[in-house]
């Protein structure tokens, strides 16, 4: 895999022309699977496309190049009272990556996904043509590029909305629940009163699937000396790969037991900075090393509203029965706002993410079983996290694939796209 790193927007086209094999635009490479890889081809890093073009405090619209990271945006705009409309669980992603994966976060039920906050962007095709894309201008290309995994062209810059905040703190509540019925009750009652919701699930404790429901709102709390303070650098670092025993069944069970029981009260209220609230893992550099040398796989699905309870129950049963215990399980209910992209992941319903230590073939066939449940309920697997789904599962996930493939740039490709049946 070769690496191209054009020094400015004007050099992107020539960089693609300078090589013979396929090219894939790449931001910070935080996608978990192979959607940010391009074996036998080139990656085109957007690290030097890092300029801001303008900010309008009247509308909150920010225009910047695609290689600008969310980290950089927060550092600059939190002190001025602005925040991202939509943020995923890490701030180490670029604007281009946020569009190409149409990322979502804890605020999905109130704000939709990243594409919903997007006004327009400019796309460079490998034939040198440049298109401004919005809901009105080149809408087909707009819809193909949002969630389009970087395959439709190189996003040069984008314009999207920030939102006003009163300060950098989040007023949050952690509420324990004992089964999924209780989860759905909490979720329903939190849709309107809370901007952010997400749940951690202990799915190895038995059929009940207990967990902790977290919900929060931006806080008006100000501290005179550190008001509107943006986040600092990551302080901790994982210096080496963890030994295998840390990820064995008993260790995972113990971790989950402690996590659930260390919170004594049913409801725990606190006011915390946005950094640990939105980006708990960003605090530890190289956190992925916790999963040891073989790494981990995340399996994230979305399931439509109808049948969400049934599907979730079936999946959790399968997980309890399976030998590969997930280390971390995250559950959230998506809102009804339709996503913008042909391949956007969020749909009205629920999303469940399971993090597994990589145990190879055994885990792969187990995940295939989970895929089948998802497919049966008309759900989908998240390409940004995927490293193993079969081509059939990809086409079952996204009904617009044919339409999408018509917009794919002939010079662009990725390991992921080829694996799931694209060119």
């Amino acid at each position, binding site marked *: 895999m070769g690496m191209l790193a054009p020094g400015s927007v*004007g050099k992107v086209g020539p960089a693609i022309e300078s090589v013979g094999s396929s090219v894939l635009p790449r931001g910070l490479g935080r996608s978990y699977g192979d959607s940010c890889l391009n074996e036998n081809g080139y990656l085109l890093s957007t690290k*030097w496309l890092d*300029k801001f073009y*303008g900010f309008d405090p009247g509308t909150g619209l920010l225009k910047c190049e695609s290689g600008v990271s969310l980290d950089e945006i927060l550092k*600059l705009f939190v002190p001025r009272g602005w925040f991202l409309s939509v943020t995923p669980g890490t701030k180490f992603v670029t604007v281009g990556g946020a569009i190409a994966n149409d990322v979502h976060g804890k605020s999905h039920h109130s704000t939709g996904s990243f594409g919903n906050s997007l006004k327009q962007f400019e796309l460079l095709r490998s034939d040198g043509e440049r298109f401004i894309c919005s809901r009105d201008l080149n809408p087909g290309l707009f819809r193909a590029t949002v969630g389009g995994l970087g395959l439709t062209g190189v996003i040069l810059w984008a314009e999207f909305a920030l939102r006003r905040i009163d300060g950098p703190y989040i007023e949050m509540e952690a509420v324990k629940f004992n089964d999924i019925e209780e989860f759905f009750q909490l979720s329903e009652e939190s849709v309107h009163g809370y901007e952010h919701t997400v749940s951690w699930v202990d799915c190895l404790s038995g059929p009940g699937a207990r967990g902790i429901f977290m919900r929060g709102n931006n806080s008006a709390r100000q501290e005179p000396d550190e008001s509107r303070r943006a986040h600092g650098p990551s302080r901790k670092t994982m210096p080496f790969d963890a030994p295998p025993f840390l990820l064995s069944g008993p260790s995972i069970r113990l971790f989950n037991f402690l996590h659930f029981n260390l919170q004594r009260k049913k409801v725990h209220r606190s006011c915390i900075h946005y950094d640990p609230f939105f980006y708990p893992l960003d605090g530890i550099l190289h956190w992925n090393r916790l999963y040891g040398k073989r790494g981990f796989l995340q399996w994230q699905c979305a399931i439509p509203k109808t049948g969400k309870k049934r599907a979730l129950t079936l999946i959790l049963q399968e997980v309890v029965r399976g030998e590969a215990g997930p280390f971390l399980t995250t559950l959230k209910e998506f809102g009804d706002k339709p996503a913008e992209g042909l391949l956007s992941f969020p749909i009205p319903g629920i999303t469940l993410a399971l993090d597994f230590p990589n145990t190879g073939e055994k885990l792969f066939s187990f995940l295939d079983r989970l895929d089948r449940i998802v497919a049966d309920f008309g759900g989908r697997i998240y390409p940004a996290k995927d490293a193993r789904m079969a081509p059939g599962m990809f086409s079952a996930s996204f009904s617009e694939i044919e339409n999408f493939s018509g917009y794919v740039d002939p010079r662009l490709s990725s390991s992921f796209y080829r694996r799931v049946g694209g060119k």
Partner: protein
Amino acid sequence: MARPAKILVFGATSAIAFGTAKLFARDGASLYLCARDEEDLKALSADLTVRGAKEVGYSVFNALDKGSIIRAVDDCLKKFPELDGLLIAYGTLPDQGLCETDIEEMRRAVEINFTSPAIILTYIAGHFEKKKQGVIAVISSVAGDRGRQSNYVYGAAKGALTTFLSGLRQRLGKSGVNVITVKPGFVDTPMTAGFKKGLLFVGPDVIAKGIYRAVKTGKSIAYVPWFWRIIMMIIRNIPEKIFIKIKL
């Protein structure tokens, strides 16, 4: 040392200069940017304005064109008569192999890396001397500390620049102006795109922070990152008899 409030930047589109300008923009400084490409300069001005720069101006210049240098400095001083900061951050990394046989390539490398910044410094030194305050930071290189077979043309030009700055520092020090020689090691920038990036490579933002800190603390010679001071001390002290036998 007071932070400069109005800064002229030559080679503004270089990754290191941009990184440094970002830090001063955040402090609300005014900036005057000079580089080859007008489109890039426009983009940079917009960026630094978003980041908090008070006022931003720019001029197109070409390092090999003395006239364009003089015009750029004049235009800058017209806009910012109170100019109290200067950063010179351009350079070219020539193909050493080519420089060993091609006289013009060799001459070009020396002119861009040494003669051209020396012209800027000669032309603008009087302004700082009269103003009796301010700071001048110029990017030289660890490569200028000792000539090595792998890049001695680049090294010689940067070595000359280091010597020039040493003298200028002594001269302007008497007027309260600080001259900083910045010596970065390996930096991951578009200039080093063709290099395999080993452990010693750092991002341009690391160098930018080093320069920003050197300006604020009134340092005169800044190796960035710091460990290059030790590496170069070792390289400088290898006896010539051994040095000629090894590859570096």
